[in-house]
């Protein structure tokens, strides 16, 4: 345990070495590698959805409504995972749904992380009173349960996937602010920062070039974990009717549409949820591996 901690300490000489070292530790965690593969498949589905899906996800085959999966009695190999109540192909809709979830994850994490890092940096470097104000504002946002706040924000902005993403990004952002600020405050004490300041580095250079790269490890881990939170929350909002609107094949929205059929057609309920679970699980596995490889300090949790 302590050996690995010493080896991954940020003493690594140059970039390629550091990357290879990271991969060495990441590879050790078999779950993380497994998660990475699933995530790659998910990303592949998202990128090439129109090529992969057998049908248009909104095309309705009226004579084939609620067909069970192919291996079940009454199934049809033309629709491997069956069809939904409107006769749309489940497989095509699930593949298309990967697009929305992937998109949500990328956008939410980018917005929340860049905003949060910037505010956190400012908070760490600014005079105490600004820092206090920023942290109180973050406390206020964190006082609301995230899903509830997102729900109310979407109610204000109007239900749509874009607004759901904005709401989730706002709700997730304080975590980045706190994380960045905490790392900045501890890095600022260190000798190399003092050295840079003595040499005459300006404040902006200190913030973005000297300190920020050394704060990135926990932020990257947080980014991976909030990618999965974003997907879950967007699906939950879709499920409550406050996210993507039908007929969008977003996984949460699909579940909401399928609710009344749960006792008659298990497949319309099972597959979209399974897709969410597998994706989120893969990302969380990857996140655990990332944390172990990047941030030996956090290894115990």
């Amino acid at each position, binding site marked *: 345990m302590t050996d690995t901690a010493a080896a991954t300490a940020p003493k690594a000489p140059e970039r390629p070495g550091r990357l290879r070292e990271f991969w060495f530790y990441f590879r050790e965690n078999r779950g993380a590698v497994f998660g990475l593969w699933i995530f790659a498949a998910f990303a592949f589905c998202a990128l090439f959805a129109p090529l992969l899906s057998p049908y248009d996800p909104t095309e309705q085959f009226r004579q084939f409504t609620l067909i069970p999966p192919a291996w079940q009695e009454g199934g049809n190999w033309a629709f491997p995972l069956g069809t939904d109540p409107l006769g749309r192909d489940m497989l095509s809709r699930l593949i298309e749904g990967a697009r929305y979830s992937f998109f949500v994850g990328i956008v939410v994490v980018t917005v929340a992380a860049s905003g949060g890092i910037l505010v956190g940096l400012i908070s760490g470097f600014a005079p105490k009173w600004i820092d206090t104000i920023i942290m*109180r504002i973050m406390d206020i946002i964190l006082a609301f349960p995230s899903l509830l706040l997102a729900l109310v924000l979407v109610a204000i902005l109007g239900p749509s996937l874009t607004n759901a993403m904005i709401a989730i990004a706002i709700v997730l952002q304080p975590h980045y602010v706190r994380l960045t600020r905490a790392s900045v405050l501890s890095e600022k004490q260190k000798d190399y920062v003092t050295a840079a300041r003595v040499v005459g580095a300006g404040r902006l250079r200190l913030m973005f070039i000297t300190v920020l790269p050394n704060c990135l490890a926990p932020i990257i881990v947080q980014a991976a974990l909030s990618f999965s939170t974003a997907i*879950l929350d967007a699906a939950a909002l879709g499920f409550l009717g406050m996210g993507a609107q039908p007929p969008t094949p977003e996984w949460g929205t699909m579940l909401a549409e399928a609710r009344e059929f749960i006792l008659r057609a298990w497949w319309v309920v099972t597959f979209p949820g399974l897709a969410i679970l597998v994706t989120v699980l893969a990302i969380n596995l990857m996140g655990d591996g990332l944390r172990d490889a990047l941030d030996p300090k956090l290894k115990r*949790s």
Partner: protein
Amino acid sequence: MLKYFASRLLTFVPTFLGVTLISFAFIRVLPGDPIIVMAGERGLSEERYRELSEQFGFDRPLVVQFWEYFTGVLQGDLGQSFVTKKPVWDEFFALFPATLELSICAMVFAVALGLPAGVIAAVNRGKFFDRALMSTALVGYSMPIFWWALLLIIVFSGNLQWTPVSGRIDLIYYFPDPTGFMLIDSLTSGQKGAFASAVRHLVLPTIVLGTIPLAVIARQTRSAMLEVLGEDYIRTARAKGLSPGRINGIHALRNALIPVITVIGLSVGTLLAGAILTETIFSWPGIGKWMVDSIFRRDYPVVQGGLLLIAVMVMIVNLTVDVLYGVINPKIRKR
């Protein structure tokens, strides 16, 4: 100690003000004029509109309105629901026991399974049990609980017909509810089968709501136990020849509990967020469902008041955890 307590309390005040300000701001930012929404399909004359806007104080400056709202909040006046015309405060506390009962059951479920799972995993570190338990915990942690609820309904309500799909108790039972907790009230009512019915209604929502806290507690207990098991005093205990059960159960677990208790305290927010989904799916008449329904009905005073009360509750719990943590661990106090 007092100084620490005072400083924690001082940060509470601006946060409370901010939370009030945000929930106040929501009603002004929401699309659509609240008075027109309230009038509904019928519409209303210009005269009546002015009358109502005067009655609600919408015609006065925002600062004055906020001051009145804020002083009202301090006196427990959160306005009236547009739909039921009842005070928001009364509605909230009429429904709150249902959410509290569900949350307590979910937490008991999570702690009762999560603590032993974490301890077993830590003691068997790296072995089969550890891997199996931690993989399960990760699955639970990644679970979209609204889907989990639907799956459980398919299996236990649909195929096995063991549990009902919605509500808190079968409609054939009727009794007064002095405590608001269905488990207690059904027991004291003395009606045959009422308690069993309440339990059957409670099982699935409890599992659904407790799943994520269960996973978090199991993971946290394991890591806290692992850390403690590496300490010198555990080696000493082992050298003294104490039994493994005594070492793990008494020496290690007790010291590992501190971070675990923090996690339990901090998951109150998670529970309330989960209650929104769980209560909606199981038609559980609690705060979560009430909030969702009010959002859809555009019942602004309810959304506003509910948001504020929930946030204040989360803040109070967090403050309590903070203070308790300071009591247990003097190192924190000095910071």
